């Protein structure tokens, strides 16, 4: 997996709470059997004025100029600033894939939906929870100052701006370690095959009906 160590990035504001995974990537784009190529359709219904379908040449589609990603000042943003319960709804990993494919590497919000939050880590993307009043301040700062950037240091669990303001955030130790090192989660579990087999042997005695094939 791609590691995340630190990031100095432009911040794009999505000033809504409860942004759901259907809004992040509408279902028609989930018909792809690949993991990449979702970036052009990130926030499709907010970003374009026409109806998006897979396989379109997005350069010819009419843009919603009011949507922040279409404003030149946010071009190249890698940090998404948003509101409560971001990523609610389905478990589709296509949502974090689309954010990552577009270029986002970190997300800041007062809260995230559980499944989405976990899916971000699987893709080298860091979701940061900051208190609502700080998120409010950051929104004001982003609106005030074109080109507003933030610096994220995962090892220190710290967000800072070039003026020197800093905010610390919480993250579970295991997740932090995995992101910093870009660990292969499946490989790690696989290395514990013996422990898993021992567990299975015990379960097979306790609940043999779960092992009809004899495992």
């Amino acid at each position, binding site marked *: 997996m791609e590691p995340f160590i630190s990031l100095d990035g432009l911040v794009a504001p999505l000033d809504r709470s409860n942004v759901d995974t259907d809004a992040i990537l509408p279902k028609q784009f989930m018909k792809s059997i690949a993991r990449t190529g979702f970036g052009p359709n990130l926030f499709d219904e907010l970003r374009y004025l026409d109806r998006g379908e897979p396989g379109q040449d997005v350069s010819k589609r009419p843009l919603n100029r009011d949507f922040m990603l279409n404003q030149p000042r946010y071009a190249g943003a890698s940090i998404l600033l948003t509101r409560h319960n971001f990523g609610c709804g389905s*478990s589709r990993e296509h949502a974090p894939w689309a954010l990552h494919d577009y270029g986002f590497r970190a997300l800041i919000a007062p809260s995230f939906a559980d499944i989405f939050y976990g899916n971000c880590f699987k*893709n080298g993307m860091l979701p940061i929870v900051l208190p609502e009043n700080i998120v409010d301040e950051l929104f004001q700062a982003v609106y005030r100052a074109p080109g507003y950037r933030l610096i994220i240091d995962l090892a220190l669990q710290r967000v800072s701006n070039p003026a020197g303001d800093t905010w610390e955030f919480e993250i579970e130790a295991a997740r932090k370690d995995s992101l910093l090192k870009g660990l292969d989660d499946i490989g790690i*579990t696989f290395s514990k095959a013996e422990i898993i087999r021992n567990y299975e042997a015990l379960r097979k005695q306790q609940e043999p009906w779960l092992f009809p094939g004899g495992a």
Partner: protein
Amino acid sequence: MTAARTLLEKLWERHVVEEDETGRALLYIDRHLVYEVTSPQAFEGLRLAGRKPWRSDTVLATADHNVPTVWSERSGGVDGISDPLSRIQVRKLGSNCEEFDINEFRLQDRRQGIIHVIGPEQGATLPGMTVVAGDSHTSTHGAFAALAFGVGTSEVEHVLATQCLSMQRMKPMLVKVEGDLRPGVTAKDLILHIIGRIGTAGGTGYAIEFAGSTIRDLSMEGRMTLCNMAIEAGARVGLVAVDRKTIDYLEGRPFAPEGKQWAAAVEYWKTLKTDDGAVFDRTIEVDASALQPMVSWGTSPEMVVPIDEVVPDPSNEADPVRRAGMERALAYMGLRAGMRISDIAPDKVFIGSCTNARIEDLRLAAKVVKGRHVSNSIVQALVVPGSGLVKEQAEAEGLDRIFIEAGFEWREPGCSMCLGMNSDRLGDGERCASTSNRNFEGRQGAGGRTHLVSPVVAAATAIAGHFADDHHFDVRE
């Protein structure tokens, strides 16, 4: 004597392969349900790493999200699917299941259906199991006291490869529901009420156990409806303790244990309930006898009101972010604050989805519809059974005739208009009374407007042409 434990704790501890001091555990997964949309990248990952499924006998697969529900298209099998991308996805599931020796119910198999309907129906979901799928509504299976939750595609691959997941413990939350539901008020209304009360993030980080006299009185179908929408309250897991109904439902199902093993299983399953005195991190109490049928008015499942009320006024909301959300929802939904819910007239009615497409749901709807006709103002009314076996059962009971004679379309099983990945969709601006679970912008089709309701309200609304419950409807007649 061991300390009193919640059902969640019992299930969690039974599945811990190893756990560190922070509560992060390697959790063993007993059942994995796989479908066409969130699995192809996981199978590709296995291939790239040269891995095989750890235990392919724990995996049950079927295509549901993309499949056509019209017989003319469905009868051609995979090759008959007209959308080329859907066809590729469904075909890919088939070839992956063949390659990795996974039991798949193919498109023309009568056991095919929505994964969250067929798991319990087959007895593939059993008490005490951990159940995962690459779909958030996997919470449904918690109705059987299984620890069941949705995962992303990376974790689908992780479970395929290792039979385990690395997870942090969830916190136990109790929703205690007491009292009798009034006639015409269902499990769907109850869960919509709960979501309205605690909000779509109210259960974040928790597993919600539903308990109390009302829950004990619910059928297994009703309990599945309840647990299904735990995720709409933010909780990945919904749970109901095992009782006689759980055991009776499962006995004789194809994947359920038999003979001596059945007896041993039942003994164990009876222990799958929260001990007296166990502690929950949060408790909510609900008086079921006060509930009315619910209708969602906005673009989040927490935006719900009783059917007799009016669309709420954002200007009464103090919080500016919430107020802006309400205003945007009203604009999207084409509604005005203060409108009576019963004055809102949908264009379409959808009865189906993993929330409400089981036999009991169809019986409830058919009871309202019988001998009546869909209003002229309704352009389409769909009934999409949750599985081929639900469809067969409904047909054996004559429910299909009741729906068809009333002007409903009787379709083949699948997820259908719940999320509109197939051709069953809402057009721009179309309004739908839907028994599904999400009313997000564009959920049922770009520009579509979804109102979440029970099968009773969906049926009565189809007949009346505006939001109605069976009571209103009888008065009208």
